[in-house]
């Protein structure tokens, strides 16, 4: 009954997004983390939290935890890969275009908050910036 032909190459749920969802990188908690922060998406209940170990201004280690849809969890997994070993100065420069670009798929307005939840954790948690919705929209 589907109006759209079934296709193995799914535009939205690309293989590597599903891979990051099913096999999240850097998943779990860090003991004695220097920074821990968690955010949720009140619309859907998605949760992402991150723990950071920081030494000499460099993110030595990072782990994320949470639950939610493939977009929010894959986005967090991808972000942690990028953050590991990055200086805080460089991490500070990560913006929403970077995160969406890394996902590499078209995100509908309804799902944009899922995609950017992990960036919000990074910003609010690691930089003490107040959640700035305009900036993330």
């Amino acid at each position, binding site marked *: *009954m*589907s*109006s*759209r032909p*079934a296709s193995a190459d*799914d535009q*939205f*749920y690309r293989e590597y997004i*599903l891979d990051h969802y*099913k096999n999240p990188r850097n998943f779990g908690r860090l003991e004695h983390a220097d920074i821990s922060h968690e955010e949720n998406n009140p*619309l*859907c*209940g*998605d*949760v992402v939290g991150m723990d950071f170990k920081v030494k000499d201004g460099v993110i030595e280690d990072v782990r994320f935890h949470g*639950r*939610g*849809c*493939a*977009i929010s969890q894959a986005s967090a997994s991808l972000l942690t890969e990028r953050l590991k070993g990055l200086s805080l100065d460089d991490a500070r420069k990560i913006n929403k275009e970077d995160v969406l670009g890394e996902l590499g798929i078209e995100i*509908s307005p*309804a*799902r944009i908050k*899922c995609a950017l939840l992990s960036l919000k954790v990074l910003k609010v948690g690691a930089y003490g910036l107040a959640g700035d919705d305009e900036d993330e929209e």
Partner: protein
Amino acid sequence: MYDVAAVRRDFPIFDNGLAYLDSANTSQRPRQVTGAMMEYFEKFNSNIHRAAYHIAEEATERYEGTREKVRAFINAASTKEIIYTRGTTEAINLVAYSWGRANVHPGDLIVLTIFDHHSNIVPWQILAHENGAHIEYVDIDERGELRMDQFRELLGRGPKLVAFSHVSNALGTINPIDDMVAQAKRAGATVLVDGAQGAPHHGVDVRALGCDFYAFSGHKMLGPTGVGVLYGRRELLERMPPFMGGGDMIKTVSTERTTYHDLPWKFEAGTQAIAEVIGLGAAVDYLNGLGMQNVRDHEREITEYAYEALSEVDGLTMFGPPPSRRAGVISFALEGIHPHDLATIADRDQVCVRAGHHCAMPLMTRLGVAATARASFYVYTQKDEVDRLVGSIKEAQRIFK
């Protein structure tokens, strides 16, 4: 014989192959409803109750005419007991602010249920916080039905207010409201029923029910957004202070004091949602034309069909009671697939299905899930739409395999 194909022809939104399974969220509107609203805009657009020219008389007549239609629809004793609001949420807030602030005192108990909608929880939390009352929630059992033993136990503690939904929006559970209202009244409580998922699908006879307040929304019963109804027993409404002050709710105003208008206008401050009220009247006419018994029967048939179809899907868990005791709402979870991902995949098949916490976060916490997917049905739902949902679920399972 109920002709769902004929019903669908009244709903232009279905002209392009949309499968709409989110009527518990908001229903679609037939041409008869939008037509009635358009007629107001194009032929007698004017303000009600105050202008002395003929189009305003026409507008006032239609606006007040809806009140009688609603009165008859829920079998209230008088149109004085039918208050227009913006929706169920405002109706419940009206009671919480007006009745609640005058009647709920420190130490008083308010009894709610764990699967109430946020609109029937948050106003009472605000009230309890201000007035020093406290809230207890009736839990559900494994089948998603209220634990009546606990309900009775809480009634034994003499609650000031008992408020619960007619039908759970998240689980579809039809509460035994006749019994619950009777017990709560016997315990001396004031009783509010959140009928947002009740009256539109099952109808209601508020006099037979015997509740003090019953709230529902126009947009969940084929009417427009922005209009809803608070039914209140006249005796209570007469004693309640106004909710909002302003134009139209007064008799006289001086610099020192105001005397308030009679019921129901005492609670309708400011220019009202005139077109929406007229649309609501057309929606009531439309439902009456179908016959509420037919509406119920059709929904039961679709619900049984969907329950059957979904129970055959591997890795799918349904929440809530069996179809015989549930309304046209089915909440479910898929193993390894988040509801949002399912909803996105279904959307590309033109299948609208809800994903989220359904404004029932205490229930989601109770069930131990962050969100569920939810399919809900109404007068226009056909089996083909359920089949298409099952197709989308299988597509999601293929992608996430």
